[in-house]
Every structure is written in structure tokens, then in C-alpha cells.
């Protein structure tokens, strides 16, 4: 493979303690990045620095440390807004993750604006995080859940969406990148069509945020959600972007401290967004860690990351297709670096265990997308890339897959 990209994965790995030798841990080829990414020193140090030297609650303190903590927390919000090209920081709500962000929209917006007989469109490839909130909402409100089926090669066909959209459609919920198929969905066109029909559009960006440029104004989505931990940041922090008009119109999700303006026995006045949606003490250190993670990503450059991962993806696709009996799911060749596959009749769990003993870490199972798993015929093994992977990691995966074939009698030893 010719190295045309301006990126050295070996140098990137030096910024991650996970990839340094450790007396109690084997070194592994980490290919489970769609589940969670490793954390660079910069993120760990930002979190640790906050807890060690700046810990205080936000928006409450009558003291300097509280003011400093609030500044750091709000600086993280501003950084997220800039990262997503959101018009203003007030459109960024911090949550625990993608799941909570989407649940927030389904509860707050959904239970206010979705009526009996209305329709919500979800795609067949959704992760449960962008599926179950809508299934439950439809059940609660007597609304109709419509499923946008995928093509046999794992894509969404826009003409199918046109057939599903009606005057009763309130929302289209779609993932930017499938966590199983690696499909990159045309979210700009999807939002356009949803809006033309009078519906809103929510984009689940959990699998795209760390891997490609993301611009909420260019996409023109009404809602977008992602998790910090899949973008080199901490767990326990996620983001909901929502257009200001919706945040103004939506009632609070949780109620409690920090989200209220006036509390009298006879009268409640909620705080302005985003505070209205952040009841209780937020994940302050985690937000500050997310700030450092976004700095880390932009320090490399999202165009550079996208180009590098694209070339590595093409290499991986070529090598995977050389393995006899391997069946690869999802579109070819344009896709993100997520590869679900099966190997003959060998169960994916067995593949993952054998790979693990060869120091190659992947995931197996249904990947929290049971309806999609049903469509694909059951469990799959899944390898997924990040910025610190390189062609040697793909080679290690392929070698280990050959060992799986030998062990289960698909090849002569």
C-alpha cells in the first residue's frame, strides 16, 4: 500500500497509554473502535487535572473554584458548538451519551409534538439507541413506526424514503454511519426530503463524529447526537445538538437543580436552554475531557483522518475479501471502517475468542441492532478502525482469521 496520507499511526499510538507496554496487560491489536476508542494522554490529563486542581460544582459556587469550573464546563460547550459548526453554544446540551440524548428528544419533543396517528420513520439499520426510544414513543402516543428497509448491499434508497414520507410524518431518525454495516448515509439529502414533507430529522452521529467532518448547518438536521467515548473522550458524556427553536419549544426532560428560574409553590419557570435540559450536577470532568478529545481530533485534522481511514478501509476490504469462506456485510467500496463479517459456519463468538488469543480484539454478536441482525441472518463478527490502526493491524487480523479456519477445519493445518 502506498502511503499518500500525511499521517503516521505509529506516532499517534505514542499519544495513547493503552498502546504502551504494561506489566499486567498483553499488547493487543485493538479493532473494537465502534464499541469505544482508546483515550490519549491529553484527555486523561485534562480530566485528571480538573479533578485534582479545579474540582467544584458549576453555576453554583460563591467561590473562585466554582467560577473556574463553570468557565471550563462552558468552554467545553463552546468547543462542541464550534466542532459541529452549531450556530450557538446554547444549542449544545450535555448528556450521558448518545442514548440519553435520543431518549431526551423522544421524551421531551416526542411526547409534546407526536400525536395519535402521526408517523415516525426509522431505518432498518438503527442501533437500539435510535430505535427503542421511537418504538416506545409510538406505543405511548398511538403513533405509527415506519421502517425504512435497507437494500441487500446494506444501503438506504432515497426513493424508498419518498414513498414512506406522508403529511403525518413527524420525524425521520437515521444514523450517519451504521455501527454494523459501515454504511455512510446521505444525511443531507435525507434531511432535505424530511423537511420537504414537513418532518424533522434526527441524526445519530455516534459512529461518524471521530471519523469525518461533521457540520450541523450543512446537514441541516434538527437534532444530532453523539457520545464522547467513541471520539477518544471519556464515557459518561454525550452531546445533543438541537436547533434553538426546538429547545425553546420542548419541555424539560429531567427536573431538579440547575434547570429552573423560579420555584414558588404556585409557579415554576424553567431556565433557558441548554440549562433547562441539564438537571442536577452534570458530568463536569467528562465534559472537560471531551473538550480535550475534540482538540486531539482537530489537532490531526478531520480531513486527514477521513482520508487516512478511507485508505486503510480500502486495504482492509481487499485483504478481508481474500479470506476464503469470509462473507462481508455492507456496501462496497465506499463505506466507513466498520466491517461485519461471518466465516463459513463458524459462529462469530468462536471467531472472536480465537482472535483474542491471537491478541486481536474485535466484537461479535448482534451489536445492539437486533432487527438488523435478524435481516442479516444472525450474529456477526465486527472489526472497526480508528486513527491509530494501520495496515499491520489488518494483516494481524487476516493471519488470525486463517488460524480460525484451521482450528475449525475449514483449512488443512
Amino acid at each position, binding site marked *: 500500500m502506498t502511503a499518500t496520507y500525511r499521517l503516521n499511526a505509529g506516532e499517534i499510538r505514542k499519544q495513547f497509554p493503552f498502546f504502551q507496554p504494561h506489566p499486567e496487560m498483553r499488547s493487543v491489536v485493538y479493532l473494537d473502535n465502534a464499541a469505544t476508542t482508546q483515550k490519549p494522554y491529553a484527555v486523561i490529563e485534562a480530566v485528571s487535572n480538573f479533578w485534582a486542581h479545579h474540582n467544584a460544582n458549576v453555576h453554583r459556587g460563591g467561590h473562585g473554584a466554582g467560577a473556574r469550573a463553570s468557565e471550563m464546563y462552558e468552554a467545553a460547550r463552546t468547543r462542541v458548538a464550534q466542532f459541529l459548526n452549531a450556530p450557538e453554544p446554547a444549542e449544545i446540551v450535555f448528556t450521558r451519551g448518545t442514548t440519553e440524548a435520543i431518549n431526551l428528544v423522544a421524551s421531551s419533543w416526542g411526547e409534546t409534538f407526536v400525536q395519535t396517528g402521526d408517523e415516525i420513520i426509522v431505518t432498518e439499520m438503527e442501533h437500539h439507541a435510535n430505535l427503542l426510544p421511537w418504538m416506545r414513543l409510538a406505543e405511548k402516543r398511538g403513533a405509527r413506526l415506519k421502517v425504512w428497509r435497507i437494500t441487500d448491499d446494506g444501503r438506504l434508497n432515497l426513493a424508498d424514503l419518498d414513498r414512506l414520507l406522508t403529511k403525518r410524518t413527524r420525524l425521520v431518525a437515521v444514523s450517519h454511519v451504521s455501527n454494523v454495516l459501515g454504511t455512510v448515509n446521505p444525511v443531507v439529502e435525507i434531511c432535505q426530503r424530511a423537511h420537504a414533507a414537513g418532518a424533522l430529522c434526527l441524526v445519530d452521529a455516534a459512529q461518524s463524529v471521530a471519523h469525518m467532518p461533521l457540520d450541523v448547518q450543512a446537514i441541516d438536521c434538527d437534532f444530532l447526537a453523539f457520545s464522547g467515548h467513541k471520539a477518544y473522550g471519556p464515557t459518561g458524556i454525550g452531546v445533543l445538538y438541537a436547533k434553538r427553536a426546538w429547545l425553546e419549544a420542548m419541555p424539560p426532560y429531567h427536573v431538579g437543580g440547575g434547570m429552573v428560574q423560579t420555584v414558588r409553590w404556585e409557579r415554576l419557570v424553567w431556565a433557558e436552554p441548554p440549562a433547562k435540559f441539564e438537571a442536577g450536577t452534570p458530568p463536569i470532568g467528562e465534559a472537560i475531557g471531551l473538550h480535550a478529545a475534540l482538540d486531539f481530533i482537530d489537532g490531526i485534522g478531520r480531513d486527514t483522518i477521513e482520508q487516512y481511514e478511507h485508505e486503510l478501509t480500502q486495504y482492509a476490504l481487499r485483504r478481508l475479501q481474500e479470506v476464503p469462506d469470509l462473507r462481508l456485510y455492507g456496501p462496497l467500496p465506499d463505506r466507513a471502517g466498520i466491517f461485519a463479517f461471518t466465516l463459513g459456519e463458524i459462529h462469530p463468538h*468462536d471467531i472472536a*475468542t480465537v482472535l483474542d488469543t491471537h491478541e486481536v480484539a474485535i466484537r461479535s454478536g448482534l451489536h445492539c441492532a437486533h432487527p438488523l441482525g435478524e435481516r442479516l441472518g444472525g450474529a456477526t463478527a465486527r472489526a472497526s478502525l480508528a486513527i491509530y490502526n494501520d495496515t499491520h493491524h489488518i494483516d494481524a487480523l487476516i493471519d488470525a482469521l486463517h488460524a480460525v479456519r484451521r482450528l*475449525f477445519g475449514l483449512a488443512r493445518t
Partner: protein
Amino acid sequence: MTTLNELYQEIILDHYRHPRGRGELEPPKITQEGFNPSCGDEIILDLRVQDGRVQEIRFRGRGCSISQASASMLTEAVQGKTVEQARALIQQVLALVKGETEGDIEALGDIAALAGVRYFPVRVKCATLAWHALDEALKHAE
């Protein structure tokens, strides 16, 4: 690689490739499903219990080699046993795959091959799926 060979012993691969006790029973029977939502492994046990004894037992399902081999071994081991004996065996198997067994395991026959699972904590659920289903099924046996 030794531990891998302990997990995938020839006895286990043989039960996986040539499952014993695969199938369904005609009613009357107790049917119990076991399902692992994270990986989709599924076992459906059919059993007929008469006079406090497992007269007949079959399994269906899909899943990894460990879950399916374990179910196959279960049907062989439990057929003809009393409910009491079956319950005792369940406890022995659960202890075995978690590495909590002391002393001789040879008396367990083929099931002893499941001992290799103890080196793979993420696979314990695979090995125990059928046995947990059996435990549930036996609650309906009285």
C-alpha cells in the same frame, strides 16, 4: 495456545458438529427457552418429566460451538436422571466453568471438557445458557 486447545477440545467440537439430543418432543412436555441478548445465542429445551425423573430431553437452537456443544452434552447427561440429580449436576457444571471445582472431574464424563471455559470469562455465559434453561424448566416439573 494451550488454553485455546483446552477450550476447543475435540470432544466439544465433536458435540458441536454432531449434536446429540437435537430435536423436539411431542406434548405433553415442558418447553424452556434460553436466550443471550448480546450475542443472539438461543437454546430451546423440550423435556418430559415423569415420576420425578427426566424421561426424555431434546434441544433446538442456534449459537456458538460452546453453547451448542454444552446443550448437546446436557441432553446426554440429564436423560434418565431424577430432578434432584439434575439440579445437583447443574450446580456442578456452573462451578466447573467458573473454575470453582476442586478435585476429580472425570466422573462428569464429556462435560469435564467444559472446564477449559474457565480461562475465558466472556464465554461462561455461552457454556451455561442451556443449564440455566434447564434450571428454569425443572421449576415447572413438579
